[in-house]
């Protein structure tokens, strides 16, 4: 209903290490970045030449006008001088055009490529992270790293970084020009600058904090929305729409209030800075005017000063906003790098051992394991699955059955003891190779957005259409797939109701069969299949198990009875082992479990 979202509007102190690592992504494009910076300097120089050219025009016009008024006629060269200034003006403009193009081009190229790399690397790393990581992190948080956080960094790399270079350059240029024009007037104007700077920073820090709050509240809005969408079927089933809407309105309103607080500050910001800027202009006009009266300053200088002053706050504000963008980007980078620094699951061995073309013998030797520290769920499990044999694991929920599967697939590593495949410790086998040797069918039959054929082909990506269809036929899925609107090319979705649960399971079987693994690991999910489909599935299963070593978490009587070895688990231990008949005769756990679990069918047979 209403989870409190993790705020994404954090700020982080500037940390050189993080910054350098981030900039490291730009390193391969340093030539482009350098060219972009160079072009930018050119743009700024051309831009700041404007007021200077105006000064020259005024300086040219003023005496000429005086001469005309005095009746001396237009001094020679006036018109030529004006044309020269105009020509220079166009020249600077052309330079600025070309340089702007170059700057945009090089910077976007560098920034976009860097961000592409970062995103790709992060995603690839996610593919290697352990299940422990995903156990800990809600999906939404992981998503947010790759989308929101990377976008924040993208903004900095492609825009802010260059803007700040430009702002600093223009400030330096303006100050230099002012000092060159008239030192006294420049110093007088600079008296107001610190006040302006202080005001800008005072406000931006506060505005920033207000926006952090905005981001926190918006994260709640999104978290609520996300869950409302995921749970919409339940909501409609229970007609909770209006209650949910009320709650959402509350969260939405918190966001509104936070936004208004931020906007209030923001609305104060500009006018305050403007007024201080006007003060600086007033100082220039007043003091500069006096200097003109005393013939210590030309008219052109005064005009240029006023123009330069006008150009002062832009870069100032950009610097302030850069400061805050930088903090946001640093916070985002810290989080992104945090994920990237997560150690990948059970590292691949330094000296990997090859798997001999799999016969498929599995040994568990005194395996101890737990998901959380201090909570051991397997207390020393040992068993052997001979090549080509089926081992069925039975036992109540929480006995540790799924943990065996998780360990064999090396989704987790055992605390102690060891697991061998064909005599090789699985930690010494490269993970890819290990999983390629295994066919894993999980209880939840996840389908990807894509066609049915693509979903089956997931088992072996280079399989041909014929192979895909053959696999589907072998598990008895071909018939219903052909009845779909577009057969194998029908697009299915994550949660669509196009396929029933049983059909999804058959698709998952086809997937595993296509893989043709030496060892099959199966978490049987018979539950969701009706009795008639049961026949189909049993046949499919028989086909799947044929000639392979199999480790099956069994729920099906037929599977258990057909198994070469049954492991009865309870409380993280194997309490009994043997074949069906032996175990029944022994009259222990298994016999009890068997009677309880299958008594319906037995009772039915009797009645």
């Amino acid at each position, binding site marked *: 209903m209403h989870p409190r979202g993790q705020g994404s509007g954090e700020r982080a102190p500037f940390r050189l290490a993080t910054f350098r690592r981030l900039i490291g992504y730009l390193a391969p494009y340093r030539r482009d970045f350098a060219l972009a910076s160079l072009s930018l300097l050119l743009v700024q120089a051309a831009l700041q030449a404007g007021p200077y050219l105006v000064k020259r025009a005024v300086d040219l016009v003023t005496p000429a006008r005086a001469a005309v008024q005095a009746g001396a006629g237009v001094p020679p060269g006036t018109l030529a001088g004006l044309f020269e200034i105009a020509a220079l003006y166009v020249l600077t403009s052309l330079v600025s055009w070309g340089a702007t193009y170059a700057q945009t081009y090089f910077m976007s190229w560098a920034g976009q490529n860097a961000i592409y790399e970062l995103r790709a690397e992060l995603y690839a790393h996610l593919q290697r992270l352990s299940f422990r990581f995903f156990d800990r992190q809600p999906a939404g948080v992981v998503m947010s790293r790759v989308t929101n956080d990377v976008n924040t960094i993208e903004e900095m790399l492609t825009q802010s970084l260059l803007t700040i270079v430009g702002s600093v350059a223009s400030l330096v240029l303006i100050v230099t020009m002012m000092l060159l024009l008239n030192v006294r007037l420049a110093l007088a104007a600079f008296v107001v600058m610190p006040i302006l700077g202080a005001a800008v920073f005072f406000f931006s820090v506060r505005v920033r904090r207000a926006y952090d709050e905005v981001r926190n509240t918006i994260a709640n809005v999104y978290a609520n*929305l996300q869950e409302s969408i995921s749970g919409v079927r339940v909501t409609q*089933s229970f007609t909770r729409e209006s209650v949910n809407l009320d709650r959402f309105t509350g969260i939405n309103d918190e966001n*509104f209030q936070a936004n208004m607080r931020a906007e209030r500050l923001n609305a104060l910001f500009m006018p305050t800075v403007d007024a201080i800027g006007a003060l600086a202009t007033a100082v220039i006009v007043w003091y500069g005017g006096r200097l003109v009266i005393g013939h210590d300053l030309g008219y052109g200088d005064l005009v240029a000063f006023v123009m330069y002053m006008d150009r002062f706050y832009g870069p100032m504000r950009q610097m302030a906003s850069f400061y805050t963008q930088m903090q946001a980007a640093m916070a985002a980078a810290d989080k992104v790098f945090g994920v990237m620094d997560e150690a990948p699951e059970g590292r691949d061995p330094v000296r990997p051992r090859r798997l001999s073309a799999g016969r498929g013998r599995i040994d568990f030797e005194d395996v101890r394991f737990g998901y959380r520290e201090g909570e051991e769920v397997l207390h020393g499990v040992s068993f052997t699955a001979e090549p080509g044999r089926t081992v069925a694991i039975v036992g109540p929920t929480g006995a540790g059955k799924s943990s065996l599967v998780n360990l064999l697939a090396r989704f987790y590593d055992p605390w102690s003891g060891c697991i061998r495949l064909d005599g090789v410790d699985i930690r010494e086998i490269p993970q890819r190779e290990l999983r390629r040797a295994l066919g894993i069918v999980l209880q939840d039959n996840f389908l990807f957005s894509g066609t049915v054929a693509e979903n089956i082909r997931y088992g072996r990506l280079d399989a041909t259409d014929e192979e895909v269809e053959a696999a589907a036929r072998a598990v008895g899925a071909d018939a219903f797939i052909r009845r779909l609107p577009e057969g194998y090319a029908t697009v299915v*979705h994550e949660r669509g109701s196009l396929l029933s649960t049983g059909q999804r399971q058959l698709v998952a079987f086809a*997937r595993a069969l296509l893989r043709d693994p030496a060892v099959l690991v199966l978490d049987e999910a018979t539950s969701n299949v009706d009795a008639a489909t049961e026949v189909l599935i049993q046949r499919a299963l028989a086909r799947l198990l044929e000639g392979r070593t199999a480790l099956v978490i069994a729920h099906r009587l037929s599977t258990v009875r057909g198994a070469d070895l049954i492991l009865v688990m309870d409380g993280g231990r194997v309490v009994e082992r043997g074949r069906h008949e032996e175990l029944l005769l022994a009259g222990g756990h298994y016999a009890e479990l068997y009677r309880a679990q299958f008594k319906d069918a037995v009772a039915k047979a009797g009645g």
Partner: protein
Amino acid sequence: MKTLFRVLRYARPYRSSLAIGLLGLVVGTAMDMAVPVITRYVIDFVLLAGHHAWLGWLAAAIVATASFKGVFWFFQRYAMAFMAQKVIFDVRGDLYRHLQELSFRFYDRAQTGQIMSRVSQDVELLRRFLSFGVIQLLGQVLSFAVVLVLLFTIDPVLTAVVLPVVPLVALAVWQFNRRVRPKYQEIQQKQAEITAVLQENVTGVRVVRSFAAEDHEVEKFRRVNWAYLEKNLEAMRLRATWFPLMSLSADLGTMLVLAIGGWRTVTGTISLGMLVQFLQYLAMLFTPLRMLGWLVNMGSRAIAAGNRVFELLDTRREVAERPGALRLGRLQGAVRLERVRFRYQPGAPWALDGVDLAVEPGETIALLGATGSGKSTILQLIPRFYDVDEGCVRVDGHDVRDVRLADLRRQIGIVPQETFLFSTTIAENIAYGRPGASREEIVRAAKAAQIHDFIASLPKGYETVVGERGLGLSGGQKQRIAIARALLLDPAILLLDEATSSVDTETEALIREALRRLLLGRTAFVVAHRLSTVRLADRIVVLDEGRIVQEGTHDELVRVPGLYRDIVRLQLAEAREAV
């Protein structure tokens, strides 16, 4: 355009804010125009004409206009922000309401990532545009017009000379807009695709790992990531070409004024102060034109975003309540399906192909049949999650399309195969259908559902948070919470999609008992997978390929050859062998 008007319709209730914003804008613009006038008087009147005493007053006037403008600016900005935030508040509320009401058919096809991207990123783009885009747009147009008039009053000839530059700048802006706009739409689309691929990868992580398909997944991501990069670079190239062109054409104007205006000053047609004033105004004339490029760009992104938002809002609710729909009192629980035909998509095979079924109040019906035979579909049609294509579904004699949806669904309890838990406390999850339920009622329901002891054993009991951010529960525990949910609702009709066999024996016994209590005294439809559940039913309906092929009690059906007997024999044979 249509999108824009639609956004503006949302702004209607806040037109007083809009008015304050406009007033602030007009006054602020006027104050902006005042400063060059002051400069002109400083030069012509104070410095050139020698009225030195006025210098201090004019300097003070600069500060005064800025302060005056500041006050109005504050109100303008605040009022506009208020309007924008309110509009977004409303849009988001509408989206939420709509998403809650969209029918199942929509969600069959929708991807959460895609929807979320519209509700978050697109709405945010709209907000930004409303908050400062709109007022800036108006402000820039206003100041452009005012400046143009002022330029004419200073020197009509000089104005006439620079005027041809204006269409040039406008052309650059227009070209920029025309080319860049579709690109931004594509960028947004690519961003959404990135999110969608990622979402699936994260949710399906176990499958990805099991099949060692990481490389395949990385390649899938590389493709969307690369497409995003390419679209960005394409947009960048357009921006780099067309954006500086606007400045270039504007600078041509300044050049003309420097040369020709300078000459006219020398000859005395205008004064030096007027020349400086003219130059300052000229900058103000082109700022709007340049800003327009940025604003138009922002506006087009906002319109693209708006289109996507409204497209979502306009998605028809397939299952909609008829105007003047019937109010329903407490249902007896009689359910009739009359010649019902239904399919999930046009062109797909019929999921139900002419089903007739009449159920008396209090009766329990077991639905049996192969996968895809239409059992679950029947459960979806009774609460009207989908509308039938032909025939009708009646509850207590009323066509479900004629009654109020809330009245209908409130009296139907549903226990689905997979239980969705919300990220909140167990108590709230149980009380999901009746948020006002007291703690005693919740506990009573939990006890009846055989889940109370487990909940009580948790350190925080009923206040334990479950769901994505909380404690993970096993399938059996979730299912009993779903049963408690349904029990608390005390529905007249119960729909149960059985998923019992994934749990161990002990749990199964608990669930059996919970189910028995749940079925008591209600009309119930049970999609059954185990014969023991089938035996709880008064009547058994066997489906095959969307048709009812057999109907009757267990004793009747085992006697005749048919699908039911086959199923029973199958299970019996297995059991007998086992014994």
